[in-house]
C-alpha cells in the first residue's frame, strides 16, 4: 500500500530526483571529457574556450597505434593519392607513418595493452580458482582457528603495495623475475587472493549444504559433488569475483611501475609515461586512455547487478 503523499512531499521528491540527475552529470563530465578528447582534432583538445561539440574523427586512434615522424616537406601528391584513407589523416597532420619496407611500424601501445590483458586475465583465473577452492574449504569443513586464518588472509590485503614492493623487487631481481609477465601475475594473484577468498566464502555459505549431502548419498564422491553440484551453483558468484579481480589487476599501477620497464610493462604505467616534456598530444593520450577504460566500463555495465551485490556484500561481511 502506497502511503498517502502530501503535495509538499511530491515536490520534495521532484527536487531530489533533479538533484540526482545533476550530480550524475557532474560525475560523468570528466569521463565524457576523456572520451570526447579521444575523438577531437588535435587543435580542439587545447582550445579556449573548451570545445564541447565538434565533428568527431578517428585520427587520434591512428596516431595511437602507429610510429610517426614529422615531415620536412609536403608529401608528393602521387604518394598522397595512393595512400589508404588512414594514412592520409596522418599526412594531413604534417606527419608520415614510419615503415619497414611495406610494413607499418606499430607504436608501443598495442604491446602494452596486450601485456595488461595477459597479466590481468591469467592472474584473475588463478586468484579466482584458488579462492574458490579455499572458500569452499573454509565454508564446509571445521578448521581450527578458522577466524584467525581468515583474518590473516584478509590482512595480506591491508599492506600498502609500496611496502611489499621493496623486498619483492629485491627477491625478483635475484631470481630474474623482474620485468616478466610471470612476476607480475604472481604479485596480482597474491594481491587478489584474499579478496577472492572472502567474497567466494560469502557465496559458498549461501549454497545449502543439503545439495552436496544429497549428492553424496547418491554415491558421488566429495570431489564430484564439488565440481558437479557446488561449482554450477556458485557460477554467478565466481563471475562477480572474477570481474572484481580483473578490474583490480587491470588498473594496478604501483607494482607495475616498480617491477616492469620494457618487456612486461602494462598500460597504467605506460600511458602516463608518454606525456613527456613539452606540449603533450592530449588527443592521442585520450585515445589510449579511452581504449583502456572501455573493457572496465563494459564489464561494469554488463554485470551491474552482481557488482552492486558484490561491493556491498564484501564490505558488509568484512
Amino acid at each position, binding site marked *: 500500500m502506497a502511503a498517502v503523499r502530501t503535495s509538499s512531499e511530491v515536490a520534495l*521528491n521532484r527536487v*531530489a*530526483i533533479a538533484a*540526482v*540527475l545533476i*550530480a*550524475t552529470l557532474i*560525475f560523468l563530465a*570528466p569521463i565524457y571529457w*576523456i572520451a570526447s578528447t579521444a575523438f577531437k582534432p588535435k587543435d580542439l*583538445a*587545447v*582550445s*579556449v574556450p573548451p570545445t564541447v561539440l565538434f565533428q568527431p574523427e578517428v585520427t587520434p586512434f591512428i596516431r595511437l597505434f602507429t610510429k610517426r615522424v614529422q615531415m620536412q616537406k609536403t608529401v608528393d601528391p602521387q604518394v598522397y593519392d595512393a595512400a589508404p584513407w588512414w594514412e592520409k589523416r596522418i599526412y594531413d597532420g604534417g606527419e608520415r607513418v614510419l615503415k619497414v619496407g611495406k610494413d607499418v611500424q606499430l607504436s608501443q601501445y598495442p604491446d602494452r595493452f596486450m601485456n595488461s590483458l595477459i597479466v590481468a586475465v591469467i592472474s584473475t583465473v588463478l586468484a579466482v580458482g*584458488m579462492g574458490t*577452492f*579455499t572458500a569452499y*574449504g573454509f565454508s564446509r*569443513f571445521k*578448521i581450527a582457528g578458522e577466524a584467525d*586464518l581468515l*583474518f590473516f*588472509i584478509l590482512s595480506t590485503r*591491508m*599492506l*600498502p603495495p*609500496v*611496502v*611489499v614492493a*621493496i*623486498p619483492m*623487487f*629485491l627477491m625478483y*631481481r635475484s631470481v630474474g623475475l623482474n620485468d616478466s609477465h610471470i612476476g607480475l601475475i604472481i604479485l596480482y594473484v*597474491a594481491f587478489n587472493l*584474499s579478496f577472492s577468498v572472502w567474497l567466494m566464502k560469502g557465496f559458498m555459505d549461501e549454497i545449502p549444504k543439503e545439495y552436496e*549431502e544429497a549428492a*553424496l548419498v547418491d554415491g558421488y*564422491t*566429495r*570431489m564430484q559433488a564439488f565440481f558437479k553440484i557446488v561449482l554450477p551453483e556458485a557460477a554467478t558468484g565466481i563471475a562477480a569475483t572474477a570481474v572484481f579481480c580483473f578490474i583490480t589487476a587491470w*588498473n594496478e*599501477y*604501483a607494482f607495475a611501475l616498480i617491477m616492469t620497464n620494457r618487456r612486461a610493462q602494462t*598500460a*597504467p604505467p605506460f*600511458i*602516463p609515461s608518454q*606525456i613527456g616534456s613539452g606540449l603533450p598530444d592530449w588527443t592521442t*593520450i585520450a585515445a589510449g*586512455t579511452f581504449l583502456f577504460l572501455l573493457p*572496465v566500463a563494459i564489464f*561494469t555495465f554488463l554485470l*551491474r547487478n552482481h*557488482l552492486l551485490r558484490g*561491493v*556491498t556484500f564484501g*564490505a*558488509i561481511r*568484512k
Partner: protein
Amino acid sequence: MASVALTNLDPASRAAARGWSDLTIRNMFIIPTLAFLIVFNIFPLIYSLGYSFTNFAANRSEPWQFVGLQNYRELLSDDHIWSNFVITAKYVIVSVAGQMIVGFGLALLLNRSFPMKGLITTLLLLPMMMSAAVVGLFWQLLYSPSWGPINYVFGLGDFAWLSNPDSALYAVAITDIWMWSPFVMLLSLAGLSAVPQHLYEAAAIDRASWWYTFTRITLPLVSPILLIALIFRTMEAFKTFDIAYTMTTQPTAELIAIRLYKQAFQQWDTGKSCALAYIVLIMVLAITNLYVKYLNKVKER
C-alpha cells in the same frame, strides 16, 4: 536413511567410497592458498625487516653493514619525513570527509524509487572502476590553467591547481573524492535500504519533521555501515600512491607512499626505505586494529 547406512561403515572404507577423505580435500583446498600468501606476503616482510637494520643499497655492489637502529633513529628525527606524514594526514582527512559527505548525500537522494534508478546508480559507479593512475593523468588536462574545462566552467582564470603548492594536495583530494564517493554511496544505499519502512510510517503518523526522522531513525540505523565505509576509505587513503604520483610533483602533495617510493627506487636508499616501510606498516596495523575493534562492536549490535 541412506546417510545412516554410510556412517555405519568404518571410517577407512567410508573414505574409500567417497574418493579422497574430507581431511585430504580440506587440506588440498586450503593449504596452497595459505602457503602462497605466506611466501609472497609474510616472507618478503621478514626479508625487508632484516634489511631495515642495514645500510644496504640495491644499486651498488659494495657489501652492506649492519647499522642497528640507526635507520629508524634517523627517520624518526627527520623533519622531512614528519612533514610527509602531516601531508598524508591532511589528505586523508580532506578526501575521506569529502567522500563521506558526497557519498552519503548521493545515497540519501538516490534512496527513493524513480525511473532508470539502476542505470544511474551504475553510471555513478564508473569512476571507482577506473585506473587511479590513468585518472590522475587525465585530471591534469581537466585542471589545466590555460585550456582546462574546470577553470573555464568555474571562471577561475589561469589558476594553476596542480603546480600551486597551496592547492596541489587539495586538487588531488578532489579527484580522489570524485573517484571514491560512489563507493561510500553504494554502502550507504545498502544501509539505507535495510532500515525497516514501518519506522518511517510510524514517524509520518506522528507528523515528525524530516530532520527529526533523519537524526533519530535514519542516522543511528545506518551509522554502523557508514563506519565501515569510513574506516575502509581511511585505510585506502593512507596508502594512496598512484593518483597523487601521476597528478603532481609538488612537494606539498608528497604523500608518505610517494616518499617511500622515491627513497627506495630513485635514491636507492634500500636499507633506510625498508625501515620507513616498517614505520608505515606499523601505522597501517594501528589503523587496521581500530577497524577490527569497531567492526566487532558493530557486529555485537
